[in-house]
């Protein structure tokens, strides 16, 4: 039993990271009907921005909670800027073209970021400094959780609630929902559709950056191609929950994380990556709109 509970703890932590990445996919899809395949690579950039920020402010040698927080914010701001640039430079010019053109552009941006990353950061894995020294917290019954896992859970939950607040309770959130329903009508109501789309990309990229730093915190190996697999899996998570649906992305991420860890723990570690795609096939066969995806769901 304690083994199962421990696996659940591992799965929920891992799943909350998928959820953060999946949110970016789902928001962009909700507004543009575009699968932003470069999103996983923004997650990678987040980890690297975090690494450089940590080195720059000395969080590696003298870890303090404030410095760790600065690292997280710096990575999020950096990736927010990258998200805005990607949207303006790559996606905006093809927005009126066919959706296929946008999709291919997204794949191109993804390849650009990966290979650009190899050029700039080098092809070898780098190791993220321990900006929060790890310690264990026992939950009883032989189940333990590390303080880093707690941080991941707290920050990702906090960010998800912050996102929910922005989307539901602010003017810009209202505008996002309007744009997601109908570009033309939103524009006629005086909403600057371009700015809202850019804002969505910034928001999504910041969440991906947070996921990058949080993952690097507990799995310190980072490299320019680290975003590919988590990116794909988070995409599956978004589809699983119902793409375009924000609570769905969170749910999909958690289901994915737990499914993965359970497969590793009880079936075979070799099927770790396969389970994501098995889930994708099953959901597409059984419920193509995703677990929470219905026409009535709020689309952002």
């Amino acid at each position, binding site marked *: 039993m*304690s*083994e199962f509970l*421990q*696996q659940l703890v*591992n799965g929920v932590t*891992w799943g909350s990271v998928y959820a953060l990445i999946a949110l970016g996919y789902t928001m962009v899809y909700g507004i543009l009907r575009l699968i932003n395949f470069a999103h996983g690579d923004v997650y990678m950039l987040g980890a690297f921005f975090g690494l450089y920020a940590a080195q720059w402010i000395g969080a590696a040698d003298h870890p303090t909670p404030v410095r760790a927080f600065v690292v997280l914010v710096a990575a999020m701001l950096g990736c927010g800027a990258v998200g805005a640039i990607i949207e303006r430079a790559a996606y905006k010019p093809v927005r009126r073209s066919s959706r296929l053109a946008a999709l291919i552009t997204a794949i191109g941006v993804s390849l650009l970021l990966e290979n650009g990353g190899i050029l700039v950061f*080098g*092809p*070898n*894995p780098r*190791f993220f400094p*321990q900006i929060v020294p*790890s310690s*264990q917290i*026992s939950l009883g019954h032989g189940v*333990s959780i*590390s303080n*880093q896992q707690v941080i991941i859970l707290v920050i990702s939950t906090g960010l998800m609630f912050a996102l929910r607040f922005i989307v539901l309770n602010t003017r810009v959130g209202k505008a996002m929902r309007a744009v997601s329903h109908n570009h033309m009508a939103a524009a006629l109501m005086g909403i600057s559709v371009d700015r809202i789309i850019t804002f969505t990309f910034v928001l999504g990229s910041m969440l991906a950056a947070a996921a990058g730093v949080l*993952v690097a915190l*507990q*799995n*310190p*190996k980072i*490299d320019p191609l*680290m975003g590919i697999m988590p990116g794909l899996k988070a995409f599956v998570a978004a589809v699983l929950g119902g793409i375009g649906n924000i609570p769905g992305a969170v749910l999909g991420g958690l289901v994915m994380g737990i499914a*993965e*860890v*359970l*497969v*590793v*723990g*009880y079936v*075979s*570690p*070799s099927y*770790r990556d396969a389970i994501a795609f098995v889930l994708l096939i099953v959901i597409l066969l059984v419920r193509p709109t995703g677990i929470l995806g219905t026409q009535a769901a709020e689309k952002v």
Partner: protein
Amino acid sequence: MKSSIRLNLTLAAALALVLSGCGSTPNEELVIGEYGSLTGNDATFGTSTKTGVEIALDELVAQHQGMIGGVKVKVVVEDDQGKPEEAATAVQKLVNQDRVIAVIGEVASSRSLAGAPICQAAGVPMITPSSTNPRVTQQGDYIFRMCFLDDFQASVVARFTALHLKLKKVAILKDVKNDYSVGLAKYFTDSFTALGGSIVAESDYSAGDQDFRGQLTAIKAKHPEAIFVPGYYTEVGLIARQSRELGIKVPLVGGDGWESAQLIGIGGSALNGCYYSNHWALDLPDPALQSFLATYKAKFHSDPDAIGGLAYDAANVLFTALQKLAEQDPDTFKGLSSTKAGSDLRKRATKKLRDLIATTTNFKGVTGTITLDENRNASKPAVVLEIKDGKKVYNTTIGPA
């Protein structure tokens, strides 16, 4: 009779020169190929091999102006990015484009296994400094190795765990995509159970994985007294950290795949109290080793790892064989600098070179004395290192049983 062969050879050489075309000049160098993972997940394997060969070449320059038999030696290095498929491409390029006379590489058995059949088919001797999987040299009679084999290495770790650490219940966590890791796990199981121990859990991962908590949680539930991790240093470091975070306090034990300057940097204090088998221990007072250590430190300002030492030995074994060939049979030796890769002259020369490498006996290397047996393997004792306060400390030497 002898002189007529010589005459024929000279004629053939002249013919080869003519046939090679007016545009191309004859190859005035002895080109040696080296392939390794200069980048990628286990990059220190490739870079250490490169530095080891560089030092051997530096010494050749200092002693003989970089020449063997009056011909300059050149080393061409190819990066395989740590991927077996790239390793095959790299070796193809070395053999067919650079027309190397011999190949040094690889460290990882999976990548040596990808390169070996190509060298064997082309009749180019290949010396792997540090691939320990037995299948590597079984690829053919042109493939040699400078280190011990995994069946021996696994028995060393098994004996150490059972007899020195006196532990009976061990879990195994292996890299399922890696020939080296799978082989070591199998041999370890055989040896360890023969010594009365039991394998209480066995799980696997794939190189490049980030998260091992699922496997480690399952292993923890079986309460092993030690975990055998026959992987490469990057994953080993991460596994060590995550196992400590999950409250697993038992020692991890492993093989020479742990040998990297980066191991401790990745695993940190989580590795304290862990053990692995290796080709050398830097704190042993062996004079050849200590002088290599000093040379290495002067040039690279850091400690070498055993991978670099084995590459240095491999290069020197090759240089020695070339020197012998130049002295004993200068005419055949000339065939090595022929540009015609497929020419009979060259094939005869690389065959002769192969024969000379195969007779390597009592070669005093920095990683021990190298004598190649009939299967072209070196038989050497293994040392076991303990990681203490972030340092690798010599614990014991275990020879063939």
